[in-house]
């Protein structure tokens, strides 16, 4: 199911034994989409109100609402409209509220028109009707608020009178001044007509622009893969997921040409700690889905009762992405999020158990990846599950976080009556389990990622010229200087990077390494000190130093690979020779040039970004967490590519990371950042 076709109305939704939800309430997917689209709309509206001269942004607000109107039922749109207008009101006051509300009904109308397949004429009709309704509403309010209206009109009259009297002092303008006064007086007298006309006109414009933007965006979204995985199965009966037995269970995705999970025999007993390992593509995620209730293509899964996803005594799942899993804004609220109203777990005891003791009142936005994952484990434990599935929970977390999580996981089966299924590709995690199940056919030792100790310098780096490319002198940066929220991110950082160097900037959460990366790329000007690129201040030559962000998808702005590479490097996309050469530098085949961006894998996206950046021959290349989210073979491939580029072409490479694994050859030099201060600078830590 791609993400552009309208959803058939959901028939089931979890009507399980222990929880009955009123049938017309929003399903989890609908709720998530409503909230995120509402946040997107309100963010656009707020930016258009708060940033001066960015008012045009408000014309884009109907698009997210239109997407909701196109894909889901009306209830979802109403919930999103409420949430978006409240957020806009809280932040940007009444003007933000009005913008969002207007655009919500324009967006909703255009989305519904698109879904029903009516065309442009219907949009015009809808725009007129909405304009009339809006106009009537505003006129009604202004009639009720008579005094405010009179005040506004009198103030405007005073201003116009002042301008007119000024103009009348000069002979040539006297007649024009009198005309202006007359027209203005007429306008004030017939104000309802004026308001109605303006309302219809503006609604028409917003509708047409919204319709155009929505159509273009829907075209582009065709083919964007739908990444949601979990579905609540429709089940009845007592909740009892363990002991579960898989007999020759096999799974093949509809339309695929090979099995995602080959026939598997597996038994999970209560109280066991099992580690599931295997290379990428061996079916680890598919196994997780089967354990969560999906039906196998062949074979059988036997359980004593229902899966009970997220319910008391049922199955709990902790997933890979730390930020998206945490749903509450406060730590204590997140632990209880989603529990039925009658349940009151001991929040402090749970937080104590996962090592977050005393943090109940903290804001979740300020936590590190490891802490967020531990919070997710605490929330899972609040449901007293019989089976806890941890799906690669340490992949996007730094070393310190991984150690903390491992500590938590290893104690779980001892303190609770539950089974723990830990899907991982780290060997130290597999070792603390009671037993390990390897899903790959061949015992591929190379596929396991080891945790590395701090680097020791290896062979001498290739000889290179010692021309300094980047110089930082006494760089410090403070966010929000002068406000009570002032925070110093960097303090007196000084170092020099020469041509052909490989530097690793290592630091934990909150060490300021992302800020340092932005300063080096010239995207932020430091509040103290200076950062020079080839002798010039970095923020004056943005683009001389290339930076590849951690979220590669956000850096890819065009629809196709060749368009993207050409746009990033600044040449015409018709110059296929240069496009293919650029792709070749990063080891991608020229046939990829015509591929759409959303059909690329994570590793390929990263390489396309680097290809575009390198085609401009930058002075240096900064990579922010280049290995995050990649599996072991992709990590090795990328590192080998970058090392070759550095050694053979003299490219200066700076890597920002919270890990050391495998980076010794690419970056012989390591700088440690600790809370904004440089701890050591030199080839040995």
């Amino acid at each position, binding site marked *: 199911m791609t993400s552009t076709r309208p959803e058939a109305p959901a028939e089931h939704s979890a009507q399980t034994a222990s929880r009955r939800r009123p049938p017309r309430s929003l399903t989890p997917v609908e709720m998530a989409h409503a909230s995120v689209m509402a946040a997107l709309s309100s963010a656009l509206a707020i930016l258009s109100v708060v940033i001066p001269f960015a008012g045009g942004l408000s014309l884009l607000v109907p698009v997210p609402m239109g997407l909701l109107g196109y894909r889901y039922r009306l209830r979802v749109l109403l919930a999103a409209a409420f949430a978006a207008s409240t957020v806009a009101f809280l932040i940007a006051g009444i003007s933000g509220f009005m913008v969002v509300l207007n655009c919500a009904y324009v967006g909703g109308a255009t989305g519904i028109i698109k879904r029903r397949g009516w065309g442009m004429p219907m949009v015009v009709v809808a725009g007129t009707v909405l304009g009339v309704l809006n106009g009537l509403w505003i006129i009604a309010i202004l009639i009720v608020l008579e005094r405010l209206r009179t005040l506004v009109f009198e103030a405007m009259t005073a201003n116009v009178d002042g301008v007119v009297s000024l103009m009348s002092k000069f002979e040539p303008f006297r007649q024009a001044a009198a005309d202006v006064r007359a027209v203005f007086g007429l306008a004030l007298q017939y104000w309802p007509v004026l308001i109605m006309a303006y309302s219809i006109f503006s609604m028409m414009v917003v509708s047409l622009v919204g319709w155009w933007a929505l159509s273009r965006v829907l075209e582009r979204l065709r083919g964007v893969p739908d990444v949601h995985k979990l579905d609540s199965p429709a089940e009845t009966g007592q909740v009892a997921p363990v002991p579960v037995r898989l007999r020759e269970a096999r799974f093949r995705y509809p339309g695929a040409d090979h099995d995602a999970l080959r026939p598997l025999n597996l038994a999970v007993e209560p109280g066991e700690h099992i580690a599931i390992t295997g290379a990428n593509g061996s079916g680890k995620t598919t196994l997780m889905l089967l354990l969560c209730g999906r039906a196998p293509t062949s074979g059988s899964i036997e359980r004593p009762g229902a899966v009970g996803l997220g319910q008391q005594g049922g199955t709990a799942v902790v997933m890979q992405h730390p930020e998206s*899993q945490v749903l509450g804004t406060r730590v204590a609220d997140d632990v209880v999020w989603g529990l039925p109203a009658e349940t009151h777990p001991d929040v402090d005891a749970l937080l104590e158990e996962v090592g977050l003791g005393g943090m109940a009142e903290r804001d979740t936005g300020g936590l590190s990846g490891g802490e967020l994952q531990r919070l997710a484990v605490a929330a899972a434990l609040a449901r007293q599950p019989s089976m806890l599935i941890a799906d690669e929970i340490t992949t996007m977390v730094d070393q310190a976080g991984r150690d903390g999580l491992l500590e938590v996981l290893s104690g779980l089966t001892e303190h609770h009556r539950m089974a723990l299924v830990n899907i991982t590709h780290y060997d130290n995690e597999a070792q603390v389990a009671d037993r390990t199940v390897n899903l790959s056919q061949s015992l591929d030792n190379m596929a396991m990622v080891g945790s590395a100790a701090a680097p020791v310098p290896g062979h001498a780096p290739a000889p290179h010229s010692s021309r300094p490319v980047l110089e930082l002198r006494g760089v410090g940066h403070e966010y929000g200087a002068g406000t009570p929220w002032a925070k110093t991110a960097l303090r007196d950082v000084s170092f020099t990077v020469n041509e052909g160097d490989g530097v690793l900037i290592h630091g934990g959460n909150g060490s300021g390494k992302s800020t340092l990366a932005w300063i080096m790329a010239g995207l932020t000007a430091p509040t103290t000190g200076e950062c020079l690129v080839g002798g010039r201040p970095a923020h004056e030559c943005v683009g001389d130093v290339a930076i590849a962000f951690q979220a590669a998808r956000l850096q*890819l702005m065009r629809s196709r690979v060749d368009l993207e590479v050409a746009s990033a490097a600044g040449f015409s996309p018709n110059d296929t020779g240069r496009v293919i050469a650029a792709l070749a530098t990063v080891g991608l085949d020229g046939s990829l040039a015509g591929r759409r961006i959303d059909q690329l894998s994570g590793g390929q996206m990263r390489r396309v970004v680097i290809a575009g950046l390198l085609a401009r021959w930058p002075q240096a290349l900064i990579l922010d967490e280049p290995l995050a989210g990649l599996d072991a073979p992709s990590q090795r491939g990328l590192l080998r590519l970058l090392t070759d580029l550095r050694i053979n072409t003299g490219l200066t490479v700076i890597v920002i990371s919270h890990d050391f694994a495998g980076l010794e050859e690419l970056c012989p030099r390591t700088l440690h950042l600790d809370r904004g201060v440089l701890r050591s600078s030199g080839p040995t830590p």
Partner: protein
Amino acid sequence: MPANPAPGPRGAAILGADAVSPARQRRPVVLLRPVPGTSVIHELWAGTKIIAVFVISLVLAFHPRWIPIALMATLVAVTIRLAHIPRGVVPSIPRWLWILLLLGAVTATLGGGEPVLHLWSIDVEVGGLLKFLRITAVSIVLLATGALVSWTTNVADVAPAVATLGRPLRPLRIPVDDWAVALSLSLRAFPMLLDEFRLLYAARKLRPRPVLPDGRMRRRRWAVELVDLLTAGVTVALRRADEMGDAITARGGTGQISAAPSGPKKADWVALGIIAVVGLAAFFVEIPGPA
């Protein structure tokens, strides 16, 4: 999705913090972040503050006269004092705004109208100026009220307060619970989306300016670029939505949204009483004479 895609203190959305000119650090606009520290006002229930905003807005909308304005302004000023809000929270006001205000005041004065002031043998008609000042005062008080709520309320408290306030609406078959959950999730997703916009904007700044032929081609190219940016933003938002949907499913659907019960305490009833008294006074106390 990565855990930290953009720099900046997480949990606070700061706009304008990476302004490129370091010369004069203008104070930026900070959204969704209460002033650190605590005070009587910080401890009040979020619902009380929402009701206060409504009452003040209603009074000023129906009675924008000098006495109500003065009463509301005093209320807001006293609250700001009680909440120990420092000077630095007010973002720097850009120069063009001052110029606009000055222009408005000058033209309003030239507009004339009763009453008339006698200053050193010049008769200045200040009627128009008074009207202009009144409308400006109303705007400032409303802005200050809204800002006050944002400076003293923790974001996490807003959605539970809305859920409690909306309970009387349930018999009207309005899905208040669903709406409160959607609001809490939107407030959670909002800073993440702002971070992503900042990244999109930065990634765009890194690109070289394209050399464009004139006229029609340029407009078409601009339109395509706009759609590209919008699609990138929407794609990322859709991915977040899918992941969030999984997270909600993994928790067995929606339910509670806050650990502590959300409702008014003793201090809140006192505050609500004060607001009611001042509001009623503003409605009924009127001095005879021109508005």
